[in-house]
């Protein structure tokens, strides 16, 4: 089916929302409470549009497409509403983008930018609330929280870790961990899903913050998590050829095994790749001690040693342990080496263990 958005004819599939159809066509509609993984929440009204034949403004994150629908995202009324939302949010919190970890990776900032808002026209004076630094991997800055509720839905219904919820009422409403504990003392398991969905800088990763690396400086590469067998797809963010941080890969997230989620190991357990303990040279035992050696020397020792044992005791005197940690290609290569060039089927891996 087709609909018209801002004069452009756009293709859509039944069941899609107007917001989804617009985004699929590359048309910008802001959305602060809606996220593909957490669904529509109807809290922020940032996504409102006008639809021909319908009265008033409609929330595009909840509005299902109809064939022939005519939608406008740029009427004065729409822009006025968006402007008010952004102004209010900016004035209520402490949104100092200059020092924010989420600078250039913030949906509120992006919205303000699109609207040409440079500073809020009124400011509510308030003292800053100290950040919650108690968690090993996550920093919470409640002054930047826009109460969109994504993190609550993600924690309650996405990863079902049931830590975050809204507490207190009215202007005191706040996202809390358990019974308002510091995150590090709560039942939080540090899966990081709340950070992943937070549209602003209210929930950020501690490691890049401390290392002064912001998301816009990094390169993301899709990798498979090296830990358990779920095989989560991860965007490994790097800077200057070093680990920066990890996010769940969200491309086609609903078709991936991890549905856009990670656990604490995939989220925080990848920095070992830069560990100073990494081996950086072949080693050969000389007079009882392992000493640095050239590749040629090391490989010659291995080849000569294997050949000698093969000749003296036969091929079945050699054994190979392949690995549940390396790729299929490498496992294949090693078993081919053992079978074809040594001549033994003494090949096993540690998976029984």
């Amino acid at each position, binding site marked *: 089916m087709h609909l018209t958005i801002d004069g452009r004819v756009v293709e859509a599939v039944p069941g899609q929302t107007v917001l989804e159809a617009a985004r699929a066509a590359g048309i910008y509609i802001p959305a602060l409470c809606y996220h593909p993984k957490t669904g529509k929440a109807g809290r922020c009204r940032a996504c409102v549009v006008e639809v021909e034949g319908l009265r008033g403004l409609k929330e595009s994150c909840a509005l299902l497409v109809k064939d022939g629908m005519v939608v406008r995202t740029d009427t004065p009324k729409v822009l006025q509403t968006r402007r008010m939302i952004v102004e209010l949010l900016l004035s209520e919190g402490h949104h100092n983008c200059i020092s924010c970890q989420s600078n250039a990776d913030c949906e509120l900032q992006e919205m303000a930018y699109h609207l040409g808002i440079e500073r809020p026209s009124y400011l509510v004076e308030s003292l800053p609330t100290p950040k919650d630094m108690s968690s090993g991997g996550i920093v919470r800055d409640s002054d930047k929280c826009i109460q969109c509720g994504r993190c609550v839905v993600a924690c309650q219904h996405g990863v079902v870790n049931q830590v975050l919820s809204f507490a207190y009422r009215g202007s005191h409403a706040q996202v809390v961990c358990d019974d308002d504990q510091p995150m590090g003392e709560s039942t939080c398991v540090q899966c990081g899903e709340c950070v992943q969905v937070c549209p602003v800088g209210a929930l950020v990763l501690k490691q890049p913050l401390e290392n002064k690396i912001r998301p816009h400086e990094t390169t993301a590469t899709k990798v498979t998590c090296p*830990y358990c*067998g779920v095989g989560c797809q991860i965007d490994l963010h790097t800077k200057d050829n070093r680990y920066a941080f990890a996010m769940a890969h969200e491309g086609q997230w609903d078709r991936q*095994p991890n549905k856009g989620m990670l656990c604490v190991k995939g989220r925080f357990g990848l920095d070992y790749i830069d560990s100073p303990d990494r081996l*950086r040279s072949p080693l050969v035992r000389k007079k009882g001690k392992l000493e640095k050696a050239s590749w040629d020397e090391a490989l010659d020792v*291995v080849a000569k040693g294997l050949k000698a044992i093969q000749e003296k005791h036969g091929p079945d005197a*050699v054994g190979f342990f*392949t690995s549940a940690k390396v790729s299929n290609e490498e496992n294949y290569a090693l078993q081919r080496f053992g079978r074809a060039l040594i001549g033994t*089927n003494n090949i096993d*891996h540690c998976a029984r263990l």
Partner: protein
Amino acid sequence: MAGLATTLGSGAMTNSMEEVFKSKVLLVIGSNTTWNHPVFGSLLKRAVKQNGVKLIVCDPRRIDLVDFADIWLRHRNGSDVALLSGLQHIILRDNLEAADYIRERTEGFQDYKKSIDFFTPERVQKLSGVPVEDLEAAARLYATAGVGALYYCMGITQHSHGVDNVKSCVNLQLITGNIGVEGGGVNPLRGQNNVQGACDMGGLPNVFTGYQPVTNPAAVEKFSKYWNVPLSDRVGLTLTQMIPECGKKIHAIYILGENPMVSDPNLHHVEESLRKLDLLVVQDIFLTETAKMAHVVLPGVSFAEKLGTFTNTERRVQLSNPAIRPTGNVRQDYEIIADLALRFGQEFPRAPESLFQEIRDLTPSYAGLTYERIREVGIPWPCPTEDHPGTRFLHAGKFARGLALLTPVTYSPPAEETDEEYDLVLSTGRILEHFHTGSMTRRSQILDAAVKNGHVELHPEDAKKRGISDGDMVTVATRRGRIETSAMLTDRVDRGSIFIPFHFAEAAANMLTNDALDPIAKIPEFKVCAARLERIAVAALEQK
């Protein structure tokens, strides 16, 4: 996964993870899912909370999943066969089995049924500690709720009778008609990111890639033609058979990316054995406990530096990309192997995609997979042709071996039971924040800070009897060795039981464990052994 292969003709998880949403009831046994496969744990919890899927958890420990369960069966360590067979006894007694399915798709029912007669609810209560009412309720729920999926992990396989455990799982799924259907299945959750792939690639002593037996002349001919060399058709030795043969039948071992010094049971023995080798080669990214013993250490690269495929627990083949360039005098793992092959007069491919092409040429279940097809979203094998979508669940309509085999099972007690001297049941496993031998997670800042040292989970009542408080240093001893660690008081473990995570080399739980082997799968007994626990006197600590 020998148990699965003999009964179903294939050793992998039969169904996909996302099918939990299609199940009506789930039975999870021997898997602390939210710690060991946390993201799948989230999917499980979602299915229960949001889709109303029923959940039965069988575990001696009060794992987190218990909070989401409709029924929790706290069976004794090592009594899995009794428990599962007890459920089957009730299902058959009350005629709740899938009679048509049994008739059309299975064989061996009569002998199997006879073996199940033994497992009356009363007897099973005695053997497993699970009350008769709970057994009855669980059996009824499981057999009547609709399509049911069974998930298990190391808790099932790491026993001296792991193969019997797996057979009991398969039997349950067969008599309830739950194999070969969407949302059902027998699903072993793989513990490491490429266990499935390592098996698929022929990292086993009895098969080439894709489980083609080395004893099958046609397979031997095919591989020997492709590789252009004659090949052995003798089944090789397993890892746990090779270790004790070191210095006898085995004189050289080549280890790629593993650390058996920490992962193997009864560690003293492993160390002693490896010392008897004329040549120990370790190819790894760290100087692991095992690498420290090697004659030659070859530095490969981490997952983050390589292009290649990994096959997840649901058989899904996924492409992983290089995120950083290797630094230092290291080489890609496939290059190292190719460099060695050259010294034996053969040219191996030096690009992952060319190696993958060889895999496709030789392995029918991988034949239809290309890097291009799996670049964004992985595809589960079998995938025989390039226009095949891949296979989410196995055995639809027909089993690999024709009819599925219902196998008789017999109960045997754990290889080692408690006595007066060793009065506690020790089990080992993983915790959420760490992985396997800890060589990766303990070098990760945040994970290391989260849990720095090993510990032993101890029930508060058992602690009180011994005058132990939370955090006290204790010794844990078995007939094979002793370690020192700190006590963590928790009712996650039952009275009379203790649990030690095995990630910590300085207090390696595997110093304590039993190397009684499962007669067929050759999986060492990790889960159960008898132990003694004592507080270390403060004076003794200060002396150190």
